[in-house]
């Protein structure tokens, strides 16, 4: 066993969330990996096909990972049937550090598949509801059909979270928000100065959302983002996940907004 050896996990359940996105429930075949914190990721291995970084979308006694099929490896992972085995290494990287936001209002902003890494954070906050102020979950997707975890959102609402969804392109029958996620920032029912924000999505979406939140008065020091870079090891050896001074697998993926902002604005860094 070396840090590069995948640990076998059995797919206990497979749920097709969207046309191209699947949530897998994973059980260790023997020794489990350490319990991931919300925001951390694992390297998932599909036999013979390859390995990719995927965040956990539920952690604790039940481990779930939500994967969008975009290429060879994610296609193979998504296609894995219940009962079959995948490899996991990890967990790697920094978590959302929810504890540091104790007592504050929470804004969670997700773009597309970015909701997956935020889900364990929502669940953790709802499980310890009294430790936080108001909780607003802002979600941007392309179309209503691309809305991840749609069936769960009402439950989050019922447990005291405000959940707002906006779509780029509405479908017939859509009565919700239309437009960029920044349009939802104003609707978040929070006290900005006393809030903390957690943002995950495409880089450009994270930047404008963070700006909008800060524009409403949310302290920049309380904004965290989850970054994405090519990764081959997850261990800080392969060099691929560099973003300027950062190794995203080690120093990230969750990072303070203020730390990444100057790096995000440099082209091709």
């Amino acid at each position, binding site marked *: 066993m070396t840090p590069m050896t995948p640990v076998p996990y*059995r797919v206990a359940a497979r749920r097709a969330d969207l046309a191209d996105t699947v949530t897998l429930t994973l059980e260790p075949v023997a020794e489990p990996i350490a319990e991931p914190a919300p925001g951390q990721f694992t390297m998932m291995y599909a036999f013979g096909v390859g390995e990719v970084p995927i965040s956990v979308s539920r952690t604790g006694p039940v481990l779930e990972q939500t994967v969008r099929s975009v290429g060879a490896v994610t296609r193979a992972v998504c296609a894995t049937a219940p009962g079959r085995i995948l490899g996991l290494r990890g967990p790697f990287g920094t978590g959302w550090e929810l504890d540091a936001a104790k007592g504050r209002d929470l804004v969670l902003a997700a773009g597309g598949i970015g909701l997956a890494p935020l889900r364990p954070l929502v669940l953790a906050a709802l499980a310890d509801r009294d430790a936080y102020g108001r909780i607003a979950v802002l979600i941007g997707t392309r179309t209503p059909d691309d809305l991840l975890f749609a069936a769960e959102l009402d439950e989050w609402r019922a447990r005291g979270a405000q959940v707002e969804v906006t779509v780029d392109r509405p479908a017939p029958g859509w009565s919700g928000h239309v437009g960029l996620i920044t349009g939802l920032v104003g609707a978040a029912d929070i006290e900005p100065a006393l809030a903390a924000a957690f943002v995950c999505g495409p880089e450009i979406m994270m930047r404008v959302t963070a700006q909008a939140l800060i524009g409403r008065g949310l302290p920049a020091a309380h904004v965290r983002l989850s970054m994405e870079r090519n990764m081959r090891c997850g261990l800080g050896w392969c060099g691929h996940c560099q973003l300027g001074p950062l190794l995203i697998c080690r120093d990230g993926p969750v990072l303070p907004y203020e730390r990444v902002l100057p790096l995000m604005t440099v082209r091709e*860094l």
Partner: protein
Amino acid sequence: MKAMELTDLGPLFEALHGAGRTVVGPTVRDGAIVLAELSSADDLPHGWGVELEPGGYRLRRRSDRAAFAHSAGPQSWKPFLHRPRVKLWEADRTGDGFQIATDSPDPPRYAFLGVRPCDLRAIAIQDRVLMGGRHTDPSYAGRREGALIIAVNCTEPGETCFCVSMGTGPQAGPGYDIALTELLDDGDPRYIAEIGTEAGAAVLADLDAAAARPADVDRARAEVTAAAGRMGREMPAPDLRDLMAGSLGSARWDDVAQRCLTCGNCTMVCPTCFCTRVTDTTDLTGDHAERWQLWDSCFDPDYSLLHGGAVRSSAKSRYRQWLTHKLGTWHDQFGSSGCVGCGRCIVWCPVGIDITAEVDALQAEADSP
């Protein structure tokens, strides 16, 4: 600690071989001084020197019999410790999944003979990356832990060397088991051997060598000190880390991109560059899979691939990544510079791009209003 004098490296080879070590050191092959397994002191490049320039390397005959007067060659010790290709494991398909097997053959027990001070530091830098963080690279660690290091203080810097400005030479820093200084008179060279570790002391104890005369020890020191004044190049800029951080938008990157081939040679020859990629392969049946770790380089087009394309697609951004990492962000990531001043990237760049000249230009650009 007491220094000893070796008049002949033969007994040293015998002692190392006798202890079951594979001796690796410089030797002449294909028109260059390469590092390879040596069977005896005769394999050393006695009487060979080199001429170096950006994009150029030539052997030249020396008038003496020096074995170590040739500055850095085409490889560093990297291929022996951080190998170009490592099989990480293999796996076979089973009914519902797969069974992984990791075979870890016993790593070779090397004795590295003739490690130059810059390379000694480079090994320390790779140690930090591959063994000094939360996770240890077992392949590297296995080889590294078994290696005995016999350094050679540098008395013959090359035209492209700048270890002095990087603070890595010409006197060997910590990390060696034994450090030699080559003394040249008529005939065969003599060596002043200094002990760095107990393992080194044990090797020397076997040789029944005489204690070095104080005059020779002084002379050895003086020659190394003199070498410091003969560096072929100098790395400018007092604080490279700041210069790099402040130069991300510099126009110089466009200039160097006109010349750079993105061929990756600089990263391959660099003794500290550590990047690897991982490839998962299968055989034709699809039932047997392997994972390999291969040298990679930030100049590879796929290095920064994300779904949808590479982050650093232009040559300019890739050269900038290499230089700013090496001299700047390495400090943030691993607490030191990633450059030891060996000059290899200058010599082995097929179009002679000179890291010190590029830094000069960035400095000039930063200084200009």
